[in-house]
């Protein structure tokens, strides 16, 4: 076993930290408050290659391993999860899905501009009546011979407005249930696609989340990823990796809140001493630190398994569930340590607490992760 990071991994971590502190921190509160999409920030982030970190250089990606991705996600999420979620969707859902399952022509046309950061992608799975339950897709892709005709509505779509390329999960053969599902690459500008209003969210308010409506949208057959009916497997495999991204995001939120609470507890005085000298606060800090360390180890182990080409779906489910849940706990305690200051926006921790909540919900709720974990324990 070796817990040391390589020189490159450390450099990536530092680059992400520098970026977050230099570019994201200064206006993160305002962007959250006004739900402003970080257009320029994302542009700079993509120029540095953070949106296609793990894609092979032959498709214009960075060729980094998943460990590096976890480290970078943590650093960005410490400051701004609305940016981190763009990074997560692009890297682990859209780009990874295309690189792993798309054909060469599709990679050439769609993956390259995404991996090089010229374009942004979105992953359209959730529906008004099918969130984490991916088997019951109502969006249909009717086989019309040389094209699919797509109809339906997708919900809670991150990057819905900013993305150019959609990967849409839809049902072609309802009788075959989940085996009739397909994943289609759809250009956002295709006629028949309309967006719902920007969702006014509790947290990650500056990421652009919309519902997306498809009304008789014609999609060429060549835009289907894999064989007919591969869509469900595609979505599940992609989500396995996506969980590592969200787990690292939750980890970053927790770490960010912890660092702020630790610093504050060493500066703020009460009853004649810095509050960190009160056991009630010191023990909170200790509990937070242990949880974060556990969370990080789960993230890194999932990433390591993925890099070693070993099965990682269960470990990433554990990481996602645990990191999200402790992020909620740690951020709540961070607000508590800050007292009244924690409840106002300037001190960041209330925002981190709102952001933490989403990590327990999206890309499979904590409960769904427990289904994944427990089923694997109970099978055979």
């Amino acid at each position, binding site marked *: 076993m070796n817990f040391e990071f390589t*020189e490159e991994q450390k*450099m990536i971590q530092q680059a992400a930290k520098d970026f977050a502190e*230099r570019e994201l921190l200064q206006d993160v509160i305002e962007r959250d408050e006004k739900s402003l999409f970080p257009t320029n920030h994302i542009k700079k982030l993509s120029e*540095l290659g953070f949106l296609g*970190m793990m894609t092979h*250089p032959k498709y214009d*990606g*960075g060729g*980094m391993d998943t460990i590096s991705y976890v480290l970078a996600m943590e650093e960005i999420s410490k400051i701004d999860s609305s940016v981190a979620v763009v990074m997560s969707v692009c890297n682990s859902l859209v780009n990874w899905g295309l690189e792993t399952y798309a054909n060469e022509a599709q990679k050439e046309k769609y993956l390259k501009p995404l991996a090089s950061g010229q374009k942004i992608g979105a992953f359209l799975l959730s529906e008004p009546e099918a969130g984490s339950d991916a088997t019951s897709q109502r969006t249909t892709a009717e086989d019309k011979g040389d094209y699919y005709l797509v109809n339906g509505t997708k919900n809670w779509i991150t990057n819905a407005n900013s993305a150019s390329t959609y990967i849409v999960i839809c049902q072609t053969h309802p009788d075959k249930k989940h085996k009739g599902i397909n994943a289609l690459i759809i250009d956002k500008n295709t006629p028949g696609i309309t967006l719902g209003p920007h969702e006014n969210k509790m947290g990650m308010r500056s990421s652009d989340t919309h519902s997306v409506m498809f009304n008789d949208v014609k999609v060429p057959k060549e835009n289907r990823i894999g064989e007919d009916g591969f869509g469900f497997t595609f979505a599940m495999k992609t989500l396995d990796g996506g969980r590592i991204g969200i787990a690292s995001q939750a980890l970053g939120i927790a770490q960010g809140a912890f660092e702020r609470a630790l610093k504050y507890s060493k500066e703020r005085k009460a009853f004649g001493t810095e509050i960190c000298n009160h056991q009630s606060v010191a023990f909170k800090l200790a509990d937070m630190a242990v949880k974060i360390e556990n969370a990080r180890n789960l993230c890194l182990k999932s990433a390591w398994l993925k890099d070693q080409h070993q099965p990682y779906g269960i470990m990433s489910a554990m990481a996602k569930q645990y990191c999200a849940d402790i992020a909620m706990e740690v951020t709540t305690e961070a607000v508590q340590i800050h007292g009244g200051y924690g409840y106002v926006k300037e001190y960041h921790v209330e925002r981190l607490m709102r952001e933490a909540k989403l990590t327990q919900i999206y890309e499979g709720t904590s409960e769904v992760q427990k289904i994944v974990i427990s089923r694997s324990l109970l099978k055979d």
Partner: protein
Amino acid sequence: MKICICISNVPDTTTKIKFVNNNTAFDNAGVQWIINPWDELALTRALDLKDANAGAIEKITVVNVGLADADPTIRKALAIGADNAIRINAEPKDAYFIATQLAEVIKKEAFDIILCGIESCDYNGSTVGGMLAEMLAYPSVSSASFLDIQNGQIIVKREIDGGQELLGTKLPFIAIVQKGIAKEPRIPSMRGIMTAKTKPLQVVEAVAGEPFLSYNSFELPKSKAACKKIDPENVKELVNLLHNEAKVI
């Protein structure tokens, strides 16, 4: 045209400074090392020039005097965009020793422009660049805050009290740069980080040289008396204290 940037490996600017061995040596336990900020600005400017003058600058080389522990810092310079690096394998003893080593390497490489940060944030000598220039008998422009290549001509400005001077000079020359030379240091891209490990980092042995100075002991400045807080509703009191107690206005 070939540009050389001399870089030092220094403790991160947020480092809490401590000493060991009875206050005779810097405590580097847990210290994060970085490219000296002024050197990093110099590198940034060189890269900007290379981007803006396609083909005019064939190579950007970073040179460091240090032991193997400086390699991650040198790799970072390569990740940011330098083409190659030379590390002169020696403990940097003082400015004269460092300049002696740099001069030896730079003489052989025939650079056109050599950039040094005006000081390093460890020993704050503001010395190496000027010494290097004298050893090589090159012109030097100190406190340079602007450097450009326009129609093949070098334009350099230096800070003077209350303003700037625009200078013409001969190549090769040494610009000792300060704040203003580049906006802010670059963050290495993923591509840059990946290619950094394939770029050449040549290690050369040091030549003989004795330092002029020895840093015999260190101490931390005495801590200040506690801040006297004044009621924000009584700003007049502050002005009175500054006038009558501190006697500074």
